[in-house]
């Protein structure tokens, strides 16, 4: 899980953060305006490619994608 958190966090910082803002595992990504609803599609695609899973659209909600911790919990559901 820690590895996954680190990978997801690194991806989020690389792809969606323009400045030197600190992103923790609990930083609100969607409600905090760091990742918008359109960009969520590319984040979902990244998770699916990386972890070879398929996340149904009804599970890919703004709430489920709102932090690195929440994302990893969601991904774990599909990797078990």
């Amino acid at each position, binding site marked *: 899980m820690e590895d996954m958190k680190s990978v997801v966090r690194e991806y989020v910082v690389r792809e969606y953060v323009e*400045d030197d803002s600190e992103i923790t595992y609990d930083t609100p990504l*969607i409600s905090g*305006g760091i990742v918008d*609803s359109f*960009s969520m599609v590319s984040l979902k695609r990244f998770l699916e490619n990386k972890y070879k899973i398929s996340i149904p659209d009804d599970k890919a909600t703004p709430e489920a994608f709102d932090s690195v911790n929440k994302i990893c919990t969601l991904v774990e559901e599909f990797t078990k």
Partner: protein
Amino acid sequence: MSNIISYDERIKNFDWSIAEKELDYQPGNVINIGWYCSDRICKLGKADKPALIWEGSAGQEKRYTYNELRLTSNAVGQFLRDLGIQPEDRVCLFMDKIPELYIGFLGVLKTGAIVQPLFSAFGDESLIVRLDNAQTTAIITQRKHAPKVRKILDKMPYIKHIIIVDADPAKPLGEREVAFDMDNAPKPENFEIHPTLAESPSVLHYTSGTTGQPKGVKHVHYSLISQYLTSKWVLDLQDDDIYWCTADPGWVTGTSYGIIGAFSNGVTQCVLDAGFSADNWYRFIEKHKISMWYSAPTAIRSLMKAGDEVIKKYDLSSLRHLASVGEPLNSEAVIWSEKVFGKAFLDTYWQTETGSIMITNFPGMKIKPGSMGKPFPGITATVIDADTYEPFNSPGKVGLIALKPGWPSMMRTYWRNEETYKKKFRNGWYLPGDRSSIDSEGYFWFVGRDDDVINTGGHLVSPFEVESALLEHPAVAESAVVAKPDFVNMEVVKAFVTLKPGFVASKDLDLEIMNFVRKKLSPLAMPQEIEFIDTLPKTRSGKIMRRILHAKEWGEEIGDTSTLEND
């Protein structure tokens, strides 16, 4: 009682002078939107009334009364003037929905300069084509967006100042950068507002077409007349309303109705600068007792998707009037809103070029779910034949929406692109580029765009721009971009791509290309789906036939393929 009282009565003997009189404006007088939205409201005795209540994503809050709006916009104006900003210089606002964006807008206008709002999620390519076209003198931005500006600064010698509103005092500023702390800046009690006249340019909004670069839509200070009255009669803004316009002022709704309409009517408006979540939106309405809510079909459908249970957690009884803009509001959404909020969202139709609402459903009018409603008083709207440009004589026929030019907020031109501007007119009509029909009772029914422009979440995306960005990716040989149906956003961007020799289609390449476009243009323009194909359908002369790809996505008849290559 609604402000419009009776639509049928209002359309009789309507004259825009109704708004002029209410605003104490006489033709030939000075008219400055910045003054009308702040100083005038104070003169009306509302100096201590809350003008702007802002909430950030972490729950932080800022409040400004109308007097603070006046003084703080004076501060912005003074700062810009001290920097040497001249009337009609273009000053770009490149910020999230923070107070500096709303108040900065008024401050720029007070100096006589032209405001150029740009969506803060724009990537560097989107930014540079718009700044280049406008030959922008200054950009007001935030620390978090400054890196995008710095990246392209060498290509923009015309930019003299980059004003950072939240600069970190511990870090040195970059080239051409200057810090401006709006809340703590000196606030002149008497700022000499530039004496702009009706036709003085005010706002430059950018919009996308099927071909060519984005177009700068030039508006003038006289647009206030339309924006004030449509806010009053359609949004029904009343003195005790708490108003929430969810649109971003990077786009026209966010300025015409998120700034000008709201403040010129002297209402209290709330702004939520946070990403979408149903819980957070309902909480916001409950907390601030929002009474008038102007939103977009995409947001409404996202709320529908979140379900009805979440609504029960909140007291939304403050809601009095709801309206929607951006793309056609489907009848299901209208019916749903009536069921869960006890009020229907009323659809409003207009676009960047029109500057204000053109065709709409009015308070008190019989609502036909799914209909665009009827023309605003003073607006002559019809549907014309696409071949003859003559209005249809009988109801039900689908044609081009046509508007008789002459209302106050009509665009005055496309910036440095008069030729394209002229092409928007046919046979004395302005053509917004949409198709509809009119029923026997005079209600308009939206059918679709008349071009290939993609309307995603209420924002227009040019297929040409996306195709051009795709071609800059090293793996892409050819590309064609079309709209794909989507429940929430109505349409999303889909790209068909052929690869250069040596590249193989894969999921990783798909993601890489998506992100490439997102960073270059914007998240809106990022293809939500990429289909790798061997060849694109083309005419014998080599022109890509987007029409065929579009029809495939929408399950429509492909139509005439006689000009198709290899057919």
